Structures are given as C-alpha cells and as structure tokens.
C-alpha cells in the first residue's frame, strides 16, 4: 500500500513538473493566449459550442487539476485504510457491543 501511494504521488508530481513545461511551449505558439470564451465563433450562423479548452494553457491547467485530484484521493485513501485497520482491530477486540 505504501509503495503504491508513493508511486501514485510520484506520477502526480511528474505530471505537475511536466505540465508547466508544456504550458510554456504552448504559450509561445500562435494560439497561446486564446481563452475559452474567445473560441466561441462570432458568426451569424450559430455553431456547436465545444466546452473542451482549445489552448494549451487551459489544457495544462486541467492536467494539473486532475493530477492534484488523484494525488489527494490517493493520500485520503491511504489515511482511510489506516482508519479501517484501526476500526477493524478495535471491533475484533469486541470493543463494540453490536
């Protein structure tokens, strides 16, 4: 469990480190500063609105968000596992009167 948590945290950290590099590379591109709102076409004929971020900055932000999310989930699960073990141990000692 400990090794898995370390691996998960390592993967998340790797993403966090790599993401700004990708972001920096993207910002130097021609579409780097476009925001999500600007991607909505300003044509007379309405078109389908795609919610997915188009530019690299927003894509990177999403990657970072997901990395942090899974890192947080991994850490919380690790602590929950400890709590489960403790609760089971107390239960096995017949602490509970259920």
């Amino acid at each position, binding site marked *: 469990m400990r090794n898995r948590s370390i691996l998960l945290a390592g993967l998340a950290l790797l993403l966090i480190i790599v993401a700004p590099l990708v972001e920096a590379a993207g910002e130097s591109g021609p579409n780097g500063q476009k925001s999500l*709102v600007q991607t909505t076409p300003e044509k007379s004929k309405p078109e*389908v*609105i795609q*919610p997915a971020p188009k530019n690299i900055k927003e894509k990177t932000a999403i990657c970072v968000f*997901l990395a942090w*999310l899974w890192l947080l989930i991994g850490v*919380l699960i690790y602590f929950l596992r400890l709590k*489960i073990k403790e609760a*089971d141990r107390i239960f096995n000692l017949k602490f509970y009167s*259920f």
Partner: protein
Amino acid sequence: MLKKIGEWLDHRLGLSPILKFMMKKDVPQHEHTFWYYTGSSILLFLTIQIVTGILLAFYYKPTLEQANASVARIMTEVPLGWIIRSVHSWSSSFMIAIVMIHLLGTMFTKSYRKPREATWLSGGLLLIMSMAFGFTGYLLPWDDLSLSATKVGTDIPRKIPVIGAWATKFLRGGEDVTGDTLTRFFIFHVCVLPLAIILILAVHVFLIQKHGMSIPLEAERKGRQVKGLPFWPNFVLRESVVWLILLGVLLTIAVLFAPSLAPAADLMAPAPEGIKPEWYFLFLFQTLKLFPAKVLFVNGETLAVLTILAMVALLFLLPFIDNRPWEKKGKIITYGGYLFLVYAAVMTVWSLL
C-alpha cells in the same frame, strides 16, 4: 467544542435516537458484499446532482428564447460553468447506471424476498424517477436533438389506450412540444421530482434500516450464521474509499469529455437525422422500432407500449411472483433476468450502430 454543540443540539432536537437508529446496523460479510456499496454510491451521485443542479439553476432560464442561450452562457462565461454542467450531466448517467446495477444485484441475490418487498417497490420507483430526471433534463438545453427526442418521447404515452392522449397533453402542456413543455419539464426536473425522490428515498432507507441488510439465500435457508461488520465506522470507512474513487472517475471523465451544446432548436425545422435518447432509454427505443405497424388488428406501437408497461409491472411484482426463490421457479426467474439483461445490452448496441 464539537461535542458541546452536539449536546446542545441533541437537548433541543432530540436527534440521538434517530442517529442511533441510522448507525446501528450490521453489514453481512460474504461473497456478495460488494453489492452493498452500490446503495451509498447512488446517494453520493444524488448529492452531486443536487449541488451542481442548484449551481446551474442560478444561471439557467427556462424560456423558449433564453434556455439555449443561458446554457451557452453557463458554458462560456460563467467561471467553471462548463465543468459544473459536465459533472451534472455525467453524474446523472453514473447515478442511473449504479441504480440499475443496484437493482440487478438485488434481483440476482433475491434480496427482495420476504420481508423486503416494500423495499423493492420503493427501489423500483426510485429507478423510474431517476430515469424521469434524465428525460426531463434532456430537453433543458433546448437544442434540435433534445427537442426531437422529447417529441418522440412524449408521443409514446399517446399509444396507451384511454388515457394516452391526455398523458401526452399533460406532459407537453399542450398538443405539441413548445416553450410550455420546456417550463413544465424544468419544474418537474427541479421541483416535483426532487421532492418525490427525497420522500421515497427516505422510505427506502428507513425500510433498509428496519429490516437490515439481507444475507445470501443459501445461508438463510441453511440457517448459517453470517459474520457481520458494524455499519459505523467500519463499513462507512470502506464506503468512503469507494466514494473517493467514484468521485475521481466522475471528475476525470467530466473534465475530459464535457458535453457540447448544439444551437437553439427551431420549432418549425424538420427533425434532424439520428435522433437518439439517452443511453438508458436506447433498448426501449430500439424495441419500439422493432414492432411492425400492425400486429393482427392491433396497432403495433400500442402493442409495444403495452408490452413495455407489462414488463415494468412484472419488475415491480417480482417479489410476489418469485415468492419461493429457492425452488425451480426462482431459478427460472433468475435465468429470465439474465436473458433480459442480454436482450437490453443487444438492443442498446444495435441502437448505437
């Protein structure tokens, strides 16, 4: 400090007997224990639905002119609006999927047997309500596809003899799908259905607490003792792990596969090609398409709708039909359930092709 607040509240509200009742439960430990996790996962997704739904309702305008534009605004201008909409949309699919898994788990483990018939009935109602949530919510973005799918969906009850025409008119708020239908669906989606689902859910949870969780049929028949685990804190902690994983999967999918928004529907425009309802209605949609125009002297569509209604009635009456589940009849019903599952899967895939 927290203990003092708790005591203060308990003195005034007298909540401790209720809390004791809610927490005092043993969860049987056996080879089918994983089915028990589905129930609380439904509650998790329902909570997410309520929270994201409230956030969306701050900006959504249920009128013909503004519905599509307000969703577009949510997606493009409101901070994190597109994620909130995506989470709302995906969590509804997750919720219905888990409600179905929960129901199948109950069906195949025969947990609906005496004295849990009422629990099964309330669960069946909750499934129908979850699907009604999906159906009413599908129209709200007011694009061509949702308009056409609603036209098809609200036309189906018309085929029911005697009350059909009235039912369609009631759903639509008139003869056709218009702005009135949109407002009506919005009220159903945010007011009527949530109130009803919370009420029936309370009954469902109360019945689970009252009867406890069922043990496997074999163990019950042989009078075998099944080891139990305290609901609080042992099982709740295990459930929390499942919730966290589901939450992570939901957010990842919602962020990576956010739903798009088509232009506003034109009431005068012809129906677009490839009208399809949400995935959980696909097998019914395909079944309706399979029926011929006439079967002997009966209208094919009427027969199809009546067949579907009969299947729903069978599903509700299952605990009363399968009243001796350990006998041959019970086994035949189980095989029937598997057959239906295969049928639904085949029809869904066929509809997608």
